[in-house]
């Protein structure tokens, strides 16, 4: 799960992580009020969408840039009025863009240095790892590739947490000396505490900045939260903004289906995550293009199959469906009945290829064959993939 920039700042405030003063605004008038309450210097107004690249983005109304500096609350109000309710297109939103519902209004910061600081869970050591670099404000992957010596990686003992000496070590490697070292120690410790307390899987502060007047603060941050831990993080769940998510995925999550929308035209419905990925791959291998990842669960109940069909068919891009089920413990005949019912109920009018294997498969195949539905059976996964690709091409 991801959150907005202003929500990240709220978390920073809660855990005592220094950041630039400011608040979120829903209307131009609110933006003016927020601006008036700030210190009176230069201001920044930032469109709140999850996608990156906001500064270089363009609004569909022609207004350029989702991040602007200004000098007065009146100007902040004017900027907010050009962003709010408008659709911002960045290199990460796709051509359809995202409507901006909120702006962040903050004190502009005179930056002296831009640094990078992140915490994530390292799979290899099964422990949190801090990644820090003097090269902030740019893509860390580029830094890792071109100047790996400028990246510090420091493993944290999960029982001890980040030790004070480790925070000083990181500060020193970033050239944060004198009073800045104390600020850095406090910021890194509080950020680590936030990371653990809120079940994050990643926190990336980029840039972490030193201001001209000698303050260290987190200027922008990206959070990822562990979906498995959301049951114990009601405050984080409340930050979820479903308008930022693929509506197909929002609908699927209501039915406890593991669905990820892609841009191809052959939908697939599979039991098990590994087999579901492999099914997408084989559609491409056979010359087609997968429309989604969809795992109905290792068990694959009749009800889940039915709701999966409805979600797939609600996608206008979908021109054919491949069902791939390995019925290990589930009876294939029960699954076959589920498919037939779902297909009839949804008035299926596009090609359907079903590959069933496993427990009581012969009865399942008979049920499919005698259903009166226009569907084909696949002998194995490859055969099924070839058949659906051919059927979709023939129908086009």
């Amino acid at each position: 799960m991801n959150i907005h920039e202003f929500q990240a700042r709220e978390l920073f405030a809660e855990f005592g992580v220094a950041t630039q003063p400011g608040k979120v605004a829903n209307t131009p008038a609110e933006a003016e009020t927020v601006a008036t309450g700030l210190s009176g210097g230069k201001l920044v107004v930032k469109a709140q969408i999850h996608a990156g690249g906001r500064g270089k983005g363009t609004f569909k109304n022609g207004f350029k840039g989702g991040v602007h500096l200004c000098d007065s609350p009146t100007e902040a109000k004017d900027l907010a009025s050009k962003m709010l309710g408008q659709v911002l297109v960045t290199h990460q939103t796709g051509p359809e863009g995202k409507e901006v519902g909120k702006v962040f209004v903050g004190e502009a910061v005179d930056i002296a240095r831009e640094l990078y600081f992140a915490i994530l869970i390292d799979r290899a050591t099964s422990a949190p790892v801090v990644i820090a670099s003097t090269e902030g404000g740019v893509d860390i992957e580029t830094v890792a590739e071109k100047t790996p010596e400028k990246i510090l990686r420091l493993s944290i003992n999960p029982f001890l947490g980040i030790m004070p000496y480790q925070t000083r070590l990181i500060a020193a490697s970033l050239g944060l000396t004198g009073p800045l070292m104390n600020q850095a120690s406090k910021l890194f410790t509080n950020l680590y505490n936030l990371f653990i307390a809120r079940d994050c899987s990643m926190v990336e502060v980029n840039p972490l900045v030193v201001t001209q007047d000698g303050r260290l603060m987190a200027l922008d941050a990206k959070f990822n939260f562990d979906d498995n831990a959301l049951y114990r993080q009601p405050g984080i769940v409340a930050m979820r903004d479903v308008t930022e998510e693929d509506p197909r995925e929002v609908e699927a999550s209501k039915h406890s289906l593991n669905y990820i929308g892609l841009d191809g035209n052959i939908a697939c419905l599979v039991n098990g995550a590994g087999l579901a990925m492999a099914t997408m791959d084989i559609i491409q291998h056979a010359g087609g293009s997968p429309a989604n990842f969809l795992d109905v669960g290792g068990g694959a109940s009749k009800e889940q199959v039915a709701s999966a069909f409805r979600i797939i068919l609600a996608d206008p891009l979908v021109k054919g469906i491949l069902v791939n089920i390995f019925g290990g413990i589930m009876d294939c005949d029960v699954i076959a009945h589920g498919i037939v019912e779902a297909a009839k109920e949804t008035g299926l009018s596009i090609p359907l290829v079903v590959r069933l294997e496993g427990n009581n498969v012969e009865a399942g195949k008979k049920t499919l064959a005698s259903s009166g539905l226009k569907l084909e059976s696949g002998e194995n996964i490859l055969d099924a993939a070839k058949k659906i690709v051919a059927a979709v091409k023939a129908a086009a």
Partner: protein
Amino acid sequence: MSILVTPDTKVLIQGITGSFGARHAKLSLDYGTKVVAGVTPGKGGQLFEGQVPIFDTVEQAVRETGATVSAVFVPPPFAADAILEGVDAGLELVVTITEGIPVIDMMRVKHAMKDSKTRLIGPNCPGLVTPGTGEKSHGGCRIGIAPGYIHKKGNVGVVSRSGTLTYEAVWQLTTRGYGQSTCVGIGGDPINGTSHLDVLKMFNEDPETEAIIMIGEIGGTAEEEAAAWAAQHCKKPIAGFIAGATAPEGRRMGHAGAIVSGGQGTAESKIEAFRASGIEVAETPSDMADALIRRMKRS
């Protein structure tokens, strides 16, 4: 021999009275597995299916029945505690089926287990099967949720991060007349107890295992590490399959650990590592058993 478990292994089930645990405990009993105890706090003294004693704690269950392995079916909020209870009771092996355990919990479990003698398999895994000699491999040791009847006793070892892909591979082997020594699902989470490499080493040492199928997916670099080791040390033919070549970067594909991030953990990298190590790569999931047969004929 097999690896990790034999048909004589005494198994206990943590969470035996929950619907999921009960269903699979029953299937294991039907398969002929020696399920000797169940654990559900507060239900000690009862019997499961009229035959398996239920205990309040793992410690009691181990003391009374001599169980050495447990299967954990406990819901995610309580699973970390259940795993460590098994570790503390001195079990040899704890197989965690539970899906959805918070990563921070697993991180702590893994570090708490560091100096113990217990091996953890999973979490978020289908478990493991050492097939038996009876009809449809009856009489084997089935721990977890895999269908038992698809197996056949034999000499191929299977290791995989995915449940249904394991069943596909096993079924392809069985229908072609190739049996299995042991099939191990190591699970789809980013932090797990046992890696591909751990299992490969065991298969390499096991005299009954003559060939290996290794199934991986996007995310992490465990497949690359296993392949690099195999190139140097593994004497046995291996076939491999990797799922997720078409997965978009930055998205978790069902399994919490199946994610390509920062250009790391791609299918291309893993397939390349397999090829460089002499592992025969299955082009599609339909090709897993045939890929192994091709590789075996070559050696």
